[in-house]
């Protein structure tokens, strides 16, 4: 699989976030503010999608950015893009929070089998280009229902793949290959493969 060093479609370039992270590692508060402004909607949106609670989401997002402030010097450009580093960190914390709150069953009963619909909230165009947003949503829509369901449960709902297999009454090998095919489908659709 190709190693990705640049994702050309991003409205802000990897190089810019990379430079900001270096400044953040040097305790530059202004650079940190710019980094926050360039990434806040992606981070908060993902956390909200996983936690589904505004209060928890704000707390967790705050924790995520404090972790960025404390650990920016651990970011290694050779290991991936700054955005992937940040969103991996953010998703990890959101999933940890979901599991520690043991809220999965309550959320489920409140929201039912939620689909990955594009949120209606307006996001400023300087942060996320409208075209990009639509294309990404279209790519999610291009998956099979079974693939999308797997991504929904495993990534956006914070279930383990074993829990996903129990939920869908499918064996583990099937779930693993569905998840893998889903990611490959997204990569192809996004022009990243």
């Amino acid at each position: 699989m190709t190693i990705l060093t640049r994702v050309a479609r991003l409205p802000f370039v990897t190089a810019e976030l990379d430079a900001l992270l270096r400044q953040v590692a040097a305790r530059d508060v202004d650079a940190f503010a710019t980094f926050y402004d360039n990434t806040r909607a992606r981070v908060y949106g993902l956390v909200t999608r996983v936690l589904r609670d505004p209060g928890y989401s704000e707390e967790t997002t705050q924790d995520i950015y404090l972790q960025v402030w404390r650990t920016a010097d651990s970011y290694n450009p050779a290991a991936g893009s700054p955005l992937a580093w940040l969103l991996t960190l953010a998703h990890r914390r959101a999933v940890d929070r979901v599991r520690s709150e043991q809220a999965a069953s309550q959320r489920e009963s409140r929201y039912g089998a939620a689909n990955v619909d594009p949120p209606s909230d307006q996001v400023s165009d300087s942060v996320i280009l409208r075209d990009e947003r639509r294309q990404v949503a279209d790519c999610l829509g291009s998956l099979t229902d079974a693939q999308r369901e797997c991504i929904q449960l495993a990534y956006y709902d914070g279930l383990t793949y074993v829990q996903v297999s129990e939920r869908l009454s499918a064996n583990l090998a099937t779930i693993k290959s569905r998840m893998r095919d889903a990611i490959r489908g997204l990569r192809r659709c996004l022009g990243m493969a």
Partner: protein
Amino acid sequence: MTEPIEPDLIALATPYALHAMSESEVADIDRLIAAAPAEVAQAFAEEVRAIRETMAVMSAATAVEPPQQLRDRVLAEVSGAPVVPLRRKPRRWQTAVLAAAAALVIGLGAFAVGQSLRPAPSMAEQVFAAPDVQTVSGEIPTGGTATVVFSREKNAGVLVMNDVAPPAAGTVYQMWLIDEKGPHSAGTMDAKAVAPSTTAMLGDLGDSQTLAFTVEPGSGSSQPTTPIFAQLPLI
């Protein structure tokens, strides 16, 4: 998990990269990767990395603007301003003073770490670093606390309001610095600025001995038009 062959390990890269595993499963994978041949470990790492780059791009689909106060809180925590905790209950003034002192220490720590790399310190940082810095704090009768960290040498202070009820619609809270000649406006706070906590700079303390609060109509007044409902001695 026992003696998995290589394709099984790679197949687990997806749930691994998506955090769709229990902690013990993650630990199992990490052990297997550490013991695997270098090319297997590298293939696994590249798969994980590609998946995470994909989901980073996918984050455009779920993007939502966070509330403005989140930005204020995040930046306050790293900028050396007094830290206003997120989940703070109303407290007695003794606790507020301790909290303000703790915030001050955190502020000074951040200042000391950052000072060689940052532009000129803000007035708030100069106040916190001043040799004559003082803190006064008190309860607002209608609920919440007000704390002022100030320096006569710097002729400035930082006001921290915690859990203060917002002013009624159509009115603002106005701060007054009072000296021998009478009250001088030190700014206003509307409902949006007050809840749930806020900080404000107080410039030009002069010879003022008291910081007082009144409720004023509209966007504020040139002189107090209602009785003072709270005050802090600046001594």
